[in-house]
């Protein structure tokens, strides 16, 4: 987290002008500016940051999006695109001098082609709705972020969202074939195609995960996969967290790529168990959930191998789901981990770092030290298969010092992630939340390059400005505040 959002005043005459210009082609109800109308848009899933937008625009056709962008471009008004508003890094935080471009009305499925295994949808379509829609064909859309019942595919594209099955099935970037949209000038662009590649540079890869800074998405073509016939999950208990971490490495080293491989430490399983009664082993210091999917024969074969490897790696106890109901029950605790933690603490802050799996023990020990240093508890849930760690710092926002300590705690953990060769964000994005930590992850020249890439698409810097990539001045200031003795830790490491 960075510092709180500075309060900003809205310029009433500018607001009136923008409203008037937008209402030339948008109906009155699609242009909002009164306080009570714009309030629902003042934050996204990162609720600690709030700011009212100058104007909210709710277009419902491509042509309207194009004209909103052309109008804002001509007036020099910044534009912040927004999907379902479930993002966790403040990527859709409005600007007091900007238009919040809500894509919520883009709810239609344009085409489902079960033979070509693709669906063409508008960006406001929910992630889970795509899988529901194509289930009758035995197909599904693989990326499954925990917010999948609410988050929209447009937002998934912006953040390159993941989920619990990424190791085997990839992220959004691996499962999207084409993104259509508009540049800030209102020029229509296509990234990718319905073939497996497109001529020229891979602009699709650049667009996915660009946090709404390069273009506005109006249509997404997703790849659909055949739904695995069966799935079973092994729940294994470990007496210490280090052994559990080594067991994860042992599974991968044995040549197994599980459909899901998740780890929870004791405080996290306890919270989850009290909440949903998933049947977790409360004596274990950590549990692993290892899922296998495929044909029934394949699953049997893999589960047998997984059990053997985990047992050799020191699992104290193991249970294999007997049926679909039990499998879903085992997962219910993991999927409910965040709300479960929400029940045991007035507030919690969810981090999102990725580390090389082999450094897990070291990072968890470090988090333990930080718990003592800052006097705050921190249960851990971990997408162990792909190294994506979600420590949850528990705090009470009513205690004035606790939010500040939480921020310091989080900063140290994210910097530790970078130090061990990982990254400050695995799937939630940088947004405004982690913009300072970008200064730790990247050097001056990489950041300059990112700004130049942005200018290639948006020379005037009007699309979601101030997000994702920090200014060099901001980094200089941040480094001045936090660098110890003028040196970054491990200066010889490439700043990946």
């Amino acid at each position: 987290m960075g510092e709180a959002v500075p309060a900003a005043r809205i310029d009433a005459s500018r607001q009136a002008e923008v409203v008037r210009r937008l209402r030339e082609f948008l109906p009155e109800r699609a242009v909002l500016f009164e306080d009570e109308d714009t309030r629902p848009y003042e934050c996204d899933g990162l609720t600690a940051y709030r700011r009212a937008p100058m104007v909210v625009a709710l277009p419902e056709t491509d042509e309207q999006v194009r004209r909103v962008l052309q109008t804002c471009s001509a007036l020099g008004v910044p534009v912040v695109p927004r999907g379902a508003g479930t993002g966790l890094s403040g990527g859709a935080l409005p600007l007091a001098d900007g238009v919040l471009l809500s894509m919520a009305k883009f709810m239609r499925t344009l085409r489902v082609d079960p033979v070509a295994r693709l669906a063409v949808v508008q960006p406001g379509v929910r992630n889970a709705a795509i899988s529901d829609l194509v289930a009758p064909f035995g197909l599904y859309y693989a990326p499954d972020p925990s917010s999948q019942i609410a988050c929209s595919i447009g937002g998934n594209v912006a953040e390159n969202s993941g989920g619990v099955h990424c190791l085997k099935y990839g992220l959004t970037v691996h499962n999207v074939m084409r993104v259509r949209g508009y540049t800030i000038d209102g020029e229509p662009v296509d990234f990718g195609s319905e073939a497996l590649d497109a001529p020229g540079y891979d602009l699709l890869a650049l667009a996915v995960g660009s946090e709404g800074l390069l273009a506005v998405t109006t249509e997404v073509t997703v790849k659909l996969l055949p739904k695995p016939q069966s799935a079973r999950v092994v729940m294994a208990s470990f007496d210490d967290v280090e052994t559990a971490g080594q067991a994860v490495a042992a599974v991968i080293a044995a040549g197994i790529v599980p459909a899901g491989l998740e780890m929870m430490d004791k405080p996290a399983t306890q919270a989850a168990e009290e909440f949903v009664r998933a049947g977790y082993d409360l004596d274990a210091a950590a549990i692993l959930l290892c899922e296998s999917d495929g044909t029934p024969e394949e699953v049997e074969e893999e589960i047998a191998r997984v059990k053997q490897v985990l047992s050799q790696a020191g699992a104290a106890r193991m249970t294999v789901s007997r049926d679909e109901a039990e499998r879903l029950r085992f997962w219910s605790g993991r999927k409910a981990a965040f709300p479960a933690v929400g029940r045991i603490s007035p507030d919690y802050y969810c981090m999102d770092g990725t580390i090389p799996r082999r450094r897990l023990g070291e990072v968890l020990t470090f988090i333990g030290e930080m718990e003592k240093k800052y006097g705050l508890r921190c249960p851990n849930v971990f997408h162990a298969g792909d190294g994506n760690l979600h420590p949850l710092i528990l705090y009470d926002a009513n205690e004035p010092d606790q939010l500040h300590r939480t921020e310091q705690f989080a900063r140290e953990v994210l910097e530790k992630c970078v130090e061990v060769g990982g990254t400050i964000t695995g799937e939630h994005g940088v947004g405004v939340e982690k913009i300072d930590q970008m200064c730790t992850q990247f050097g001056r020249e990489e950041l300059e390059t990112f700004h130049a890439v942005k200018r290639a698409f948006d020379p005037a810097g009007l699309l979601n400005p101030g997000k994702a990539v920090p200014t060099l001045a901001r980094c200089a200031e941040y480094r001045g505040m936090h660098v110890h003795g003028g040196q970054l830790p491990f200066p010889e490491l490439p700043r990946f």
Partner: protein
Amino acid sequence: MQAVLEAMAERVRAAARSAQALRPRGGGSKDFYGNEPAGEPLDTRAYAGIVSYEPSELVVTARCGTSLAELERTLAEKGQMLPFEPPHFGAAATLGGCVAAGLSGPRRASAGAVRDFVLGTRLLDGRGRVLAFGGEVMKNVAGYDVSRLLTGSLGTLGVILEASLKVLPRPPAETTLRLEAPQDKALEWMNQWAARPLPISATCYLRGELSVRLSGAEAAVRAAREKLGGEEVAGAEEFWAAVREHAHPYFAAEAPLWRLSLPSTAAPLGLPGEELIEWGGALRWLAGAGAARTLREAAQRAGGHATLFRARDKSPGAFAPLTPVQLKLHRELKAVFDPARIFSPGRMYPEL
């Protein structure tokens, strides 16, 4: 290695000062690909070696000059592989060339392309700076995904110094089946099968014969073999290698070789020349002397694009033209990484 890198960086800086074109080049195995390469070769082979390989992390990092064959051997020793099964097109192929060309082999339709497995890169840009993007972890959304942008950029944005790639375990069982069918039937089958949970890892259709490779758990391969029927083929490994490396007799034809990348369900285009179909219908090779314009229009109508892959005369341009907006973005991006326009000018498009 630092000295090698510094010498390369100095050469780039000098070239930028004197507007001298350079073309990053490994073993030269893909010199034929794209438009006629311009510029002095910048040999990347001395910058070689595996930097790190941790099998349990499923990640390998190696320098650009590393021999692709050596890299694959190292992975094979640990029972792992590059999942996109890259074509080498010659024993001298390097990792840098593999990433820069962005070409994937038979496993592409089921496993993914080169770009899907590139996790991070180090780049020597047109100002002679060394930049690092992405990393060695599978989930990483910090900053724009420049590593994937560089994949397939044909050396036009800079020298890809180093790449980190996700690797996968080799499948424990593999078999190849052969079935006879006319082209439209074969396309229909491939698309139907892809919508079912079958462990198909490669397909190839030529002259009325459809070859299907199954890879995965023993039980899954066995079950799929029963479902699909057909004859099991002996010596299939050589067959797939020959298709991947264009050593198969089909590729010896005199006629220009076109690479048509199409939606897998596209109906047979009926263009003059003989076709070889891969990737479940999504990749169609065409050896034929038809007019470039006709071919490109047909590919575009079908929702894809046509590349003039191997030909004596590449005057029609190796790659399908971009839309004006796309071309503008390409020029802007070229200027970001290579402002003096020294790297492989014209290799991809005359404007870059």
